[in-house]
């Protein structure tokens, strides 16, 4: 299936290659570079390219291209999903997925890739299994290793791979047993010029951090599971139990994982936490424009809106801006034409306001369309859909774990058209 993998950085250097079958010359990437040139924006590079003898399937993550070469028919999503899984694994091992980190840990990266694919077919992709075989680097271990000549490769064998629950490693032991669940919801919305909501929906995930000894069997139930319309689960969740009783029953992996992601049924009206009053205009004569934005609370369920931020992709002809913000600060990147207004906490008494003028390139016709405003925000301790976890039970182990649930609402793809 997957023949070779090339990691390519933003500027087009191949800094790592790995082959699972016979070696494919890196000149095959030239086709990719050609497409990259043509696309201008890295996001616009087609994920699947055809060359005379190979097919190139690539993803763009963290300013890196993961480019895989395949020779025969294979479901493209299979490869894409796998590449993202590789990137996720790097992220988990090294804290970030960037060129420098991968270069620093190239041996571990190589060992990981060797275990993840066998002859191009995924072998071990569960992070719990991988961590048993190849230990993630820590500062302490690297110091110890250099002193004692110890290694990163686990001397225990990956029993998880054989078990019926491959996602959990065996013999987990903690002195503090704890299980935390974060219910994170994102509001995706398109609001039009007049402030009416064109489209809005809520997407949520439950991120879990479970550090429990032994083989705990957990049951998580909701007060109002009916809200959930469509969901996808971590493989550990017993699907039939959910179907029958609407409870999440699972033996968790060790550590951090995404338990489920869900979509709130579209019949429910989505509460839009903020409103945006804006007036952006480009004058027909002269080379300037005006901008005024005010953001106020709408339906916040009595909670504080934090980390409020507005991002505007300005038209190419906007040269510079001179604005005054009543709260927070703004930056304007002249090369990318992105205006970012970092507001912070939303004060309902004194609404944040940004106003001023834009200076335009002369001799260029005024832009057809006003730029749309992307909003970012956070509301702590609130799941905007109203979803509530009712209880968490543990079976199979004797100790009493510490349990916690946190709610958070964020703006997802929240766009205000102007």
């Amino acid at each position, binding site marked *: 299936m997957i023949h070779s993998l090339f990691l390519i950085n933003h500027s087009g250097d191949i800094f790592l290659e790995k082959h699972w079958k016979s070696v494919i010359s890196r000149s095959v990437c030239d086709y990719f570079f050609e497409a990259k040139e043509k696309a201008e924006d890295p996001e616009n590079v087609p994920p699947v390219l055809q060359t005379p003898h190979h097919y190139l399937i690539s993803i763009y993550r963290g300013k890196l291209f993961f480019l895989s070469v395949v020779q025969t028919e294979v479901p493209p*999503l299979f490869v894409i999903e796998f590449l993202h899984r590789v990137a996720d694994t790097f992220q988990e091992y090294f804290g970030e997925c960037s060129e420098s980190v991968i270069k620093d840990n190239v041996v571990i990266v190589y060992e990981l890739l060797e275990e993840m694919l066998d002859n191009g077919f995924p072998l071990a992709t569960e992070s719990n299994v991988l961590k048993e075989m190849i230990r993630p680097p820590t500062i302490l271990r690297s110091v110890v290793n250099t002193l004692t000549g110890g290694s990163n490769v686990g001397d225990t064998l990956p029993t998880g791979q054989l078990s019926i629950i491959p996602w959990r490693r065996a013999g987990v032991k903690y002195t503090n047993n704890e299980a935390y669940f974060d219910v994170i919801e994102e509001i995706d919305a398109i609001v039009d010029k007049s402030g009416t909501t064109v489209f809005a929906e809520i997407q949520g995930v439950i991120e879990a951090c479970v550090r429990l000894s032994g083989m705990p069997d957990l049951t998580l139930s909701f007060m109002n599971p009916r809200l959930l319309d469509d969901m996808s689960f971590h493989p550990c969740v017993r699907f039939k139990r959910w179907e029958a009783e609407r409870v999440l029953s699972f033996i968790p992996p060790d550590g951090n994982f995404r338990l489920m992601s869900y979509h709130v049924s579209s019949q429910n009206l989505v509460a839009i936490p903020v409103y945006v009053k804006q007036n952006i205009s480009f004058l027909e004569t002269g080379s300037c424009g005006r901008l005024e934005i005010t953001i106020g609370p709408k339906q916040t369920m009595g909670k504080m809106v934090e980390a409020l931020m507005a991002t505007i992709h300005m038209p190419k002809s906007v040269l510079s801006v001179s604005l005054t913000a009543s709260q927070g600060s703004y930056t304007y990147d002249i090369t990318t034409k992105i205006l970012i207004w970092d507001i912070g906490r939303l004060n309902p008494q004194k609404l944040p306001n940004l106003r001023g003028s834009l200076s335009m390139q002369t001799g260029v016709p005024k832009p057809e369309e006003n*730029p749309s405003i992307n909003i970012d925000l956070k509301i702590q301790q609130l799941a905007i859909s109203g979803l509530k976890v009712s209880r968490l039970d543990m079976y199979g182990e004797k100790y009493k774990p510490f349990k916690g649930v946190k709610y958070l609402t964020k703006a997802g793809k929240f766009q205000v058209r102007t």
Partner: protein
Amino acid sequence: MSTAALYNDQGAAEAAVEAGQETTPTSSSSGAAFGLFSTDFKKNEDLKEMLESNKESLKLEAMKRIVQLISKGKNASELFPAIVKNVASKNIELKKLVYVYLVRYAEEQQDLALLSISTFQRALKDPNQFIRASALRVLSSIRVPIIVPIMMLAIKEAAADLSPYVRKTSAHAIQKLHSLDPDQKEQLIEVIEKLLKDKSTLVAGSVVMAFEEVCPDRIDLIHKNYRKLCNLLVDVEEWGQVVIINMLTRYARTQFLNPNINESLLEEGSGGEKMFYGSDEDEDEDEKEKKAEAAAIAKRKPYVMDPDHRLLLRNTKPLLQSRNAAVVMAVAQLYFHLAPKAEVGVIAKALVRLLRSHSEVQFVVLQNVATMTIKRRGMFEPYLKSFYIRSTDPTQIKVLKLEVLTNLANETNISTILREFQTYIKSMDKDFVAATIQAIGRCATNIGEVRDTCLNGLVQLLSNRDELVVAESVVVIKKLLQMQPEKHSDIIKHMAKLTDNIQVPMARASILWLIGEYCEHVPRIAPDVLRKMAKSFTNEEDIVKLQIINLAAKLYLTNSKQTKLLTQYVLNLAKYDQNYDIRDRARFVRQLIVPTEKSGALSKYAKKLFLALKPAPVLESPFKDRDHFQLGSLSHLLNAKAGGYQELPEWPEAAPDPSVRNVEVKESVPEWTKCSSREKRKEKKVEKPFYSDSEGESGPTESADSESDSASTTDSASASVSEESESGLESESEEESETEEEEEDKKEKKNQKKEPKKPVQESESEQSSEEEDRKPEKRSKKLKSDSESDSVEDEGSESESSPSESEDFESEAVVTKKKKAAESKPPSKSVRKEEKKEKKEMSLLDLDDFEPTPSPQVTPVNTLLSNSLATDLEGLSLSDSILSPATIIPSGALKNYELLHRITGEGLSVEYCFSRQPFSPDANMVAVQLQFTNNSTSDTKNLHMEDVRLQSGMRVKEFPEIELLPAGEMTSAVMGIDFCDSTQAANFQLCSHTKKFFVSIQPPVGELMRPVFLTENEFKKEQGQLMGMNEITEKLTLDVKCRNEHAIVQRVTTAANLSRVPCGSDKECSPPVPPPDYPVHRFAGRTVTSSSLVLVTVATREEGAAQLMVNCEKMVIGTMLVKDILLALTQ
């Protein structure tokens, strides 16, 4: 290379060996090169030293640096001899890194690689499975042809290994060996065949992958493993799932019939969708014929889905919830290609969910959605808004979303979509704007209603400042105008003016073509345009020049007076053009239109040639017909066949023999028990890892139930009450509200007496619900004790609650309510009594077919069946049943159906039920008991039937005329209908002295039969004769409340008029195949008209799984019965 060469210069001992391998001439190394690569060289030199040292840590350090070299794509092959020695190292990390190196360079250093083989051969015998597996992994990755026999041997051994992990590795090795030496195919297929039989989930995915790579056409290897693969699927790791699902899609296409074969005709009839995309008439015609043919075939043979086909669909569905996008896509394509049309909809939600994922995932999913929306538009319509475009989406995503939106457009949503498009047109992303304009054009051609609106909108765009936008609009307008040019001459005029400004060649060419084509509509402007064009001819692009020549020719033919000279001027210019196409065209046109003595006969036809009516172009989706590629595949994405792509076969005309999938079991038992026991084994395997824990909690009580079942049924009934603690509460409250309703009903009919038992029940249920309100935490206990005491004291109340038990929680509670309301509506005591009596009998589980024959005469009900008489009858039936214990016919509550509603009947309401008694005047008829209630204030007279309209073969025995039904009274009558073993409705008119009502009676299939008594052996014998086509098997999961014997029997007998085959003999006389703790329930009956046997078997398994089998020579009845019983058992 040069490093290697330099290395040779140094003359190290090992290098000499290597020098033989290297083909690079040593002379290529020069002094300059030395300087350049000296650092590199030195590094390699100390690497070698480090490798040869005795210290593990130094060796490890060296290997790490070598791996770094490899990762950068630098050549480190000259270190091979030094490294290969470490292959047997004790240090695991060192060993692994050596493996990495070995696999990378073995192909280049074949002879040296052989040195390591013996190490692996030794490791293959290691007691530790991981060492065995990793040895096989590396051994098979060494691409050295000499060791093929060794690999073959190792693979064969590993395939028989005890450890599933090693077997998995061997499946991977098969592919490696096959790519190394395709001649080994035959032997490898044998190994694949063996591994396919493997029952481990670890192996399944890998071996199917090997199958796909080595012998994808050997579909026959799958037959015997098909059911196993379907059942294992949930537990296979996600990557294996993708491969298996894709393979099974292809398999199913060769083995099953098209489930939509019957619908294709309907589809054609509904037209709408087809119209938009139907490109040309002929093709449609052909298609129509084909479809008609197919439909004809379908009519001859009603479609019955193969149970294996159903199995696949059912077992893949939960995977739509997978977190892995590839799995979701695989299931989606399986449903798209294999599922009946009505069921495909489930995939839409999951696919829309994937749109939240990474942009690459979005890209692939949108491509597939675009293809799907062409065939199945309705599926994605509810998710229209999820395809709205954000300004931050990458352009390629935007364009795809636009495609989907365009495909989804229809008359109802077009206004919303056009409003969205309006926003998109103003986008800064000009490629996207161009795509939007084309999308508008397509909407306009597809939906006639908005054509003018779109055209106007596009014309407005002509004054846009961006030239690209204008050009794109011109091209689209041209296409639109071609459909109805005469109406839009002003638009053509407007466009003619644009020639001064627009510079985009394609747009200019489009305008010129339009003017030429419709020069009759703009007779004044056209010559002027030509004049201008002639002036700028030399500066135009080639496509514009060609159109100028065309314009000139057309004008010359229509208006030669004004344009003769101009045309000749243009042709002269073209004659000396640099482009040979243009020169050719000019020569050709001149010969055609300018008559000379030499010009041939063709010039006469010039007008016909140039001014022929051109058909309007069809704006089509680029995704049309892409679905002949398997969705989700690389080939589909590229719209071109990729290497190794396996075509998705067309459905077969007739299904191949389904029995090939049966798996032989050694015991010589009837087929159905075989498969049931096999499936049980499998299910154990499948379910255990995931679900055994969860369901184990309720498991023990259940199995205890089923054991005690045979002993006492009342026990089990109360146990089932205790099982559902929560739902009991709701149904209880439901009951309360229902009794209230009933009371209202009663108030309406004041002359009705109250039943003696009723108040007791009411108060009881009210009381209990009150109590529950007070102590909600104890509700389940309370309820349990309540119902237990009920069952002891008052059987009536227990049977009251039993129907509600059988319902699922809240959602079903509504159904319960309805059903119960229907039951309770007729305040007739006779019916009530009868129901009650039957229920009581059922709860005792021993009653016979004795029932009071309802009098066909008009009799005031309350006098006929007094309370005391009812109890008398109960006693009678009890004693009867003791006399003939063999004929056990438990019948569920009779269901009342509405024939005439109180409102439509203007006060007269009629309900009917199938009384399940033999209709004495004619044994071939089904007895239908009608219940007339006069709710009006005036009397109804002369109730009788008229104008009976029936399907051929059906007969009706009318009920005797009811002369008088006083106001507020009710009465009942019995009629007989011979339904001819079909579920066709009997239509007739119900007439009173003043009014006529059209009514119809449609029987559920379960009522078309009468119970017969069979012993178990007789049953099995008969069943043996009704195999093959006459047998329909379905697997199901029993409803939580329906896992004991009592409930199953009750539900089956409620759904169909069948009698239970005594099961006591099961354990004694049948071979010990079905384990006794999973009872098998058998029911028998005959169809009323043709007396065909109907045999039903419900074989239970652990955890509520069960298998339902119906044997009946009337296949239609069998199929419908399966559906009904399935519904009864799973809800």
